[in-house]
């Protein structure tokens, strides 16, 4: 187990190193010149060159990359070109909001997805099942931007139950979590439904029924624990999905997370911030996958860690 963990951690570090390299090279290849962006349109060529020198942008790619890596190893992610603030402090001030939204969206998608999946499986091929599956189809296909605006319009503007975007209280959290969780809820309800149906058809269920167990005990005690396994493994992978959704949802609801930070940095070629946000999200995705792999054998002893 520990050997496995160490090996996986080492692999994760390698993956992250690869990501820094790819991102760095891509940003280096972008034809737009950050120095020119900083210098403004009134600048002379000499001024632009001066800025390029100050930021070390005239150095060869390898030198720049090495400087970035050695800084990163010491916990220094550099300073934003535009805001001039430390990238680490910019990210630190926004990460809690993103994490809160992400955790709350995971809870939302699990509650919604599992409930819908279980109900649909138990009412298979009946109108309830059909309408729930249509709902999950819509949840998967609808753009998050549209869902967010729609929820805001109905529940915040018309009904006045929630504030119109913003951050701070539990009421602020509800609509963004639902918007972000809806996509996952759609997937999970479909997975849970088919997983339940598969288990329901297995021998253990027939045996349990033959023993005279109540329907509730069969479903709660035997079917659900078996059916839920593939879904747990998915949650870790989900974090990657959330990282893309979070940019959209945060911008609709004015949620002060890293998605918002990333979006602005990309528009203004603020390379240190783009690198920083990429690193943080990549770390989250890699860790999520790692945790999913580590948790799986705990739930299902048939899966072994090697």
């Amino acid at each position, binding site marked *: 187990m520990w050997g496995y963990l160490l090996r996986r951690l080492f692999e994760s570090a390698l993956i992250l190193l690869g990501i820094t390299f790819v991102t760095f090279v891509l940003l280096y290849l972008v034809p737009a*010149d950050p120095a020119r962006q900083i210098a403004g349109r009134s600048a002379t060529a000499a001024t632009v060159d*001066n800025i390029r020198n100050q930021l070390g942008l005239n150095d060869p790619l390898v030198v720049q990359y090495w400087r970035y890596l050695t800084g990163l190893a010491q916990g220094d992610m550099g300073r934003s070109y535009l805001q001039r603030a430390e990238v680490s402090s910019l990210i630190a001030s926004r990460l809690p909001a993103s994490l809160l939204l992400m955790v709350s969206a995971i809870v939302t998608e699990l509650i919604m997805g599992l409930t819908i999946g279980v109900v649909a499986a138990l009412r298979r091929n009946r109108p309830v099942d059909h309408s729930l599956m249509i709902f999950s189809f819509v949840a998967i296909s609808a753009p998050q931007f549209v869902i967010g605006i729609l929820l805001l319009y109905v529940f915040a503007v018309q009904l006045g139950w929630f504030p119109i*975007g*913003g951050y*701070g209280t539990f009421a602020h959290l509800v609509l963004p979590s639902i918007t972000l969780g809806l996509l996952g809820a759609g997937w999970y309800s479909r997975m849970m439904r088919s997983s339940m149906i598969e288990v329901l058809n297995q021998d253990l269920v027939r045996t349990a029924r033959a023993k005279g167990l109540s329907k509730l005990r069969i479903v709660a005690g035997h079917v659900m624990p078996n059916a839920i396994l593939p879904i747990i493994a998915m949650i870790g992978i989900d974090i990657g999905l959330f990282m893309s959704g979070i940019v959209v949802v945060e911008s609709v609801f004015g*949620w*002060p997370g890293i998605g918002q*930070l990333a979006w*602005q940095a990309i528009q*203004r070629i603020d390379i240190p911030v783009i690198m920083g946000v990429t690193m943080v999200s990549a770390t989250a995705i890699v860790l999520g996958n790692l945790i999913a792999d580590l948790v799986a054998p705990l739930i299902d002893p048939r899966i072994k860690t090697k």
Partner: protein
Amino acid sequence: MKTILLSGIAGFALAASGALAQVDEDAPQGGEMAVTYQDDVATLDPAIGYDWQNWSMIKSLFDGLMGYEPGTTTLRNELAESYDVSEDGLTHTFVLKDGIKFHNGREITAEDVKYSLERVTNPETRSPGAGFFGMIEGFDSWNTGEGEGLSGVSVIDDKTVEITLSRPDATFGHVMALNFASIVPQEAVEEAGEDFGRQPVGSGAFRLAEWTPGQQLVFERFEEYHRAGVPKLDSVTFNIGLDPTVALLRIQNGDADIPGDGIPPAQFLQVTGDAAYDDQIVEGGQLQTGYITMNTQMAPFDDVEVRRAMNMAINKDRIVQMINNRAVPANQPLPPTMPGYDADYEGYAYDPEAARQMLADAGFPDGFETELYVMNVDPNPRIAQAIQQDLSEIGVTAQIRSLAQANVIAAGGEADQAPMIWSGGMAWIADFPDPSNFYGPILGCAGATPGGWNWSWYCNEDIDARATEADAMVGEAAAREDAWRQIYVDIMADAPWVPVFNEQRFTLHSDNVAGDDSLFVDPVHIPVNYDYIYATEAQ
């Protein structure tokens, strides 16, 4: 040395911008307002901030020696009690008002002026505005990292600063009204270091009371502001991170007063057609021109007849209609609200028949193939398609190259890359209300260098000399304006651009706040002049 009062610049701008706005200077103080924005504020450091969102915020937090009458392009003294210019136009003397203070309570002295100007031009500061101060003596050596400070700026006594220029420049008053010329306290800058943009200390009408990144900023009234009775509001709250569509919902709900990003294009017709908004929508001109550049160093655009034909081929009215009339058709580089605009100039009429004939006479009876570069954000690709269609009417096949903003700018800055560029989303909005601001970087020889903004690569040395001459006409406002007017008319004879339209600004405000319409579309404070808007409940 004889000095002349520089009422000239003020008078000339005033005449051009029409009547003075009826700003109610005696409006009651009190109340508050909420403004929404999608993007977080990048910085509030006046030496660094250079986007339209923080431009106006910085104007409320900081003051320079010069400023503008609210709602107009009329220059006025701000922190300066007096401003004198020597007859040769080279020595500019400013005397500070008495008893003006920074937000930290310290009185402003002439040393602060010198420090602030040296800070913005110091290469270490990496200010996007440093280039504006190029006329100050000693700029070149100081800005390239040599020498000790700006030799042209000298402190005469506690209240007096004398600035020597290396060439006479009639725009210097405007330059001193730019945010980049704001006066900052050295001790606060040094204490905050690189974080000064997050902890700004100025002498403006408001001071920063709170900044929660990604959420909100709160400005509070600066009680010791040097203008009595200003600002009107007790506080302004900026709610950050709200999509323009969501911002509109907030305003409908009474949770916000002004959408900082304007009326979202998707809702434009719905909002402007809704009677409920009738009293709340304000329309104003903008110091902006959208144009098509034709690279005068690339065939076939090296032929002036071809460029003139292009000018006659574009149906500008249709393009303006396409963007829901959020602009007015243009026929010259300067926008109508800019001094030097020639209202009598008729420009090139839309006449595809004549244009085709001109092309044939120039040796292109069957037209030619070319490329049109455009920024890939709506509505610009749609506008490019309209241009493409108009050109096909005269036999010109234009392939559209729709790219990210930075890539289009990069292509324009190369001599042989982009035959045609539609400027929308990139250029050109004036930095200050003076006709010279539409020349140097975008039409002058100096801008026709690699990485420059003169995407036509147009360089007419005769006109360049006349531009230099016009800028040296200190204290001859009317003559100078005439000189510039003639320069732009003559440029149009060379036709390096097809001027297409001048954008109009449309904004909206709730019933909770009021003020003259001009304040909500202030040409200098974009999107609104925070200092003079008042709360209706305070009345």
